[in-house]
């Protein structure tokens, strides 16, 4: 049950129960003991009934009368994200002025918006909002749940004026069998994120970061030699993030996680072995990855924010997280393209996020939702792209992603121009990454399940000097094949 539902339940109990439970007092104003007991029992039963009623997922937001439409939208920033929350609320107000017949009800589902267990619970319980946030890898799960609807016929230039400019690859991940199930609102691809301060201290050239994994290894050795618990290169191996980064690094080597037909695992090969061998060599051969392993997403970024990580692979928004959530500084960080095996990377992992539409919405609600997404997420200069507003805030302007609009389109040009004109981060720090694009490869189907399995292989080479890479990959391959066979 989501947070807002439980609050509703409590409110209903608090407001409604007394009305139904108010006893008829005796003349002296006192109730007899049996009366108390009966009243208490009835109040308890009534309270429970109301609580259960409040938990129901009945959609009561449809108000077609008088052309008024109400939609609920999740992923409203949380209270701690003060600037983002203020911006969101201001946008809701401005949008409602622009469309007086539409009311947006915002719901916050945590800073991360899609913590997979919470997301699955909301989806399975049917308590998602009318427009609900999801990752690009969630499409299959969302369709399987039966909680979403395809919106193909409503996605037009009238509802999303920039739709033709939206990147085809981003659209494709929300499309299944030719039907549109979601609208992309953010995308990313991975590169090498590095700490300029530590590079300088280690005598490395900030303008010439490693381009190959051999160079990464050499640089990591020099950075970790600084001591003080600094890891030259840091990597995930827990909470499914290990598998996520294994995939990204495998793509850089030119590999793929599953065969083209999606039926078999395809990482137990020379490229998969090279990925793990390189990590094992850095961890135990060079001792350049630090003692602490089994790192999940917040662990690595906490260390990075504390200046204890020289390099890691990540997307540009990793620097945003380091600064806004882990007390780091933008000026310490820069990005380069993903390193390759013996030159530029052959591919890099791309992903992102978007919004789905809850099953059973009226045509007016869907159109209202699309208009909101167009306003908040897909219009240069507005909503998430309102760089003039973000510039004085602690939000980065000038990062090379998201790139939601296809290069060459008017929307893309407008977005890039606005971003550069209002940049509050040093554009040079991200120029290498932006100017040397690597082919982007989407995440595999069943991504989270596959990532969970590969965590084990990653943790194996990072925590056990005697781990057999062949055995780790074989075990992971068998497990992934089983998941793929199950469909």
């Amino acid at each position, binding site marked *: 049950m989501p947070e807002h539902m439980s609050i509703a339940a409590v409110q209903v109990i608090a407001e409604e129960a007394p009305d139904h439970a108010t006893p008829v007092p005796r003349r002296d104003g006192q109730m007899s003991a049996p009366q108390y007991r009966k009243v208490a029992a009835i109040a308890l039963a009534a309270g429970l009934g109301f609580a259960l009623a409040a938990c129901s997922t009945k959609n009561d937001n449809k108000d077609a009368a008088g052309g008024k439409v109400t939609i609920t939208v999740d992923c409203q920033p949380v209270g701690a994200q003060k600037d983002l929350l203020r911006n969101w609320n201001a946008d809701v107000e401005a949008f409602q002025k622009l469309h007086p017949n539409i009311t947006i009800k915002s719901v916050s589902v945590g800073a991360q918006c899609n913590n997979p267990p919470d997301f699955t619970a909301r989806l399975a319980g049917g308590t998602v909002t009318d427009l609900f946030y999801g990752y690009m890898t969630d499409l299959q799960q969302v369709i399987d749940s039966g909680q979403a609807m395809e919106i193909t016929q409503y996605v037009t230039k009238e509802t999303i004026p920039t739709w033709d400019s939206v990147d085809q690859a981003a659209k494709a991940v929300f499309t299944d069998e030719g039907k549109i199930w979601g609208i992309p609102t953010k995308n990313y691809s991975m590169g090498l994120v590095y700490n300029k301060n530590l590079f300088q201290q280690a005598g490395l050239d900030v303008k010439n970061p490693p381009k190959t994994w051999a160079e990464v290894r050499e640089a990591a050795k020099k950075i970790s030699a600084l001591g003080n618990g600094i890891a030259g290169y840091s990597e995930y191996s827990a909470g499914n993030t290990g598998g996520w980064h294994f995939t990204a690094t495998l793509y850089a080597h030119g590999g793929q996680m599953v065969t083209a037909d999606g039926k078999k695992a395809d990482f137990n090969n020379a490229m998969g072995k090279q990925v793990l061998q390189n990590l094992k060599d850095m961890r135990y051969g060079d001792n350049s990855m630090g003692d602490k392993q089994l790192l999940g997403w917040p662990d690595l970024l906490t260390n990075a924010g504390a200046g204890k990580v020289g390099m890691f692979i990540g997307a540009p928004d990793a620097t945003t997280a380091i600064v806004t959530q882990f007390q780091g500084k933008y000026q310490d960080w820069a990005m380069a393209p993903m390193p390759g095996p013996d030159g530029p990377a052959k591919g890099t992992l791309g992903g992102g996020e978007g919004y789905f539409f809850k099953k059973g919405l009226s045509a007016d609600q869907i159109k209202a939702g699309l208009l909101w997404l167009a306003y908040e997420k897909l219009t240069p200069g507005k909503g998430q792209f309102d760089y003039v507003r973000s510039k004085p805030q602690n939000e980065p302007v000038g990062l090379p992603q998201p790139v939601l609009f296809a290069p060459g389109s008017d929307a893309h040009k407008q977005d890039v121009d606005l971003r550069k004109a209002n940049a509050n981060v040093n554009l040079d720090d991200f120029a290498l990454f932006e100017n040397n694009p690597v082919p982007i490869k989407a995440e595999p189907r069943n991504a989270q399940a596959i990532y969970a399995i590969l965590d*084990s292989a990653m943790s194996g080479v990072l925590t056990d000097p005697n781990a057999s890479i062949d055995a780790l990959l074989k075990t992971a391959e068998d497990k992934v094949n089983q998941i793929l066979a199950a469909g």
Partner: protein
Amino acid sequence: MAIVTVPGTREQPGSRLRVPVRAPTRRGRRVRDNLTGYAFLIGAVLCFAFFSWYPMIRGIVMSFQRTRRGVTTWVGWDNYERIVNDPSFLTAWKNTLYFTVLALIFGYAVPFFVAILLNEFRHAKGYLRALVYLPVMLPPASALFLFKYYVYDPSDAGLFNAVLKALHLPTSEWMQSTTMTMPAMVLASTWMNMGGAVLIYLAALQNIPGELYEAAELDGAGIWGRILHVTIPQTRLILSLMAMLQIVATMQLFIEPLILAGGAGTQDSATSVAYLIYQHGFFQNDLNGAAALGVIMLVVLAGFSAVYARLTARQDAT
């Protein structure tokens, strides 16, 4: 207001109401007398029905279904077959049983001996009890994060490693070592949970008549003799109940691997059955498989409880 006397009724003394002459049946009276009790029961029954029995039945039903593209179909034993063939299935059961055995050795025995020790103290009893109970008051997640970041830090900065180093003993990588993962989890779990068990044992110990110890002493029993021949027999019922609760609880091992080991731990060394259920349900888009594994666990625990209850009943009878 005029009182109308209905034929076949009589006036109750001191009342203006007229009630039927025929006395209510015994059953009817019993129901009416217990009306308040039934009203109270409704809440509890509804709570159990909605939050325990319904989810349990729903879980069993789900374990025989499969939902794809919003369509749910009956698939017989397919989910069970898939779960049993999951390469992590055996590992998860082995890990869980290993944890249960270790927890039985340490997590079960340690609180009992701590209780005996506390029972012997004559001074600062309340203070010591509060001290032992304190970890229970910490939210489990907070306690485990303390262990993860401060106690089991694999570098020399970790609390345990610093102590081991000061004693010139070899240090450990704790959660990063496949061999130490389980013992480390048992240790943290015992520290976190033993307060409650200690209090229960203490209450049981204080019910043992002092004369029994005096008699044992007169018979020449030492401290171990008194524990073996007085304390354990006198607390046998509570000990056997706690053993069963302990086993059922530890078989559901979840939060320890999730927080201390990031879920699966190094090379699956922390994967428990409950964690595998979580993985299937919340990460693998496989709620039906998760339900099947949940049912398997339910059957195993119910079977264990039944056998245990039977054995202890037989033992009590002898």
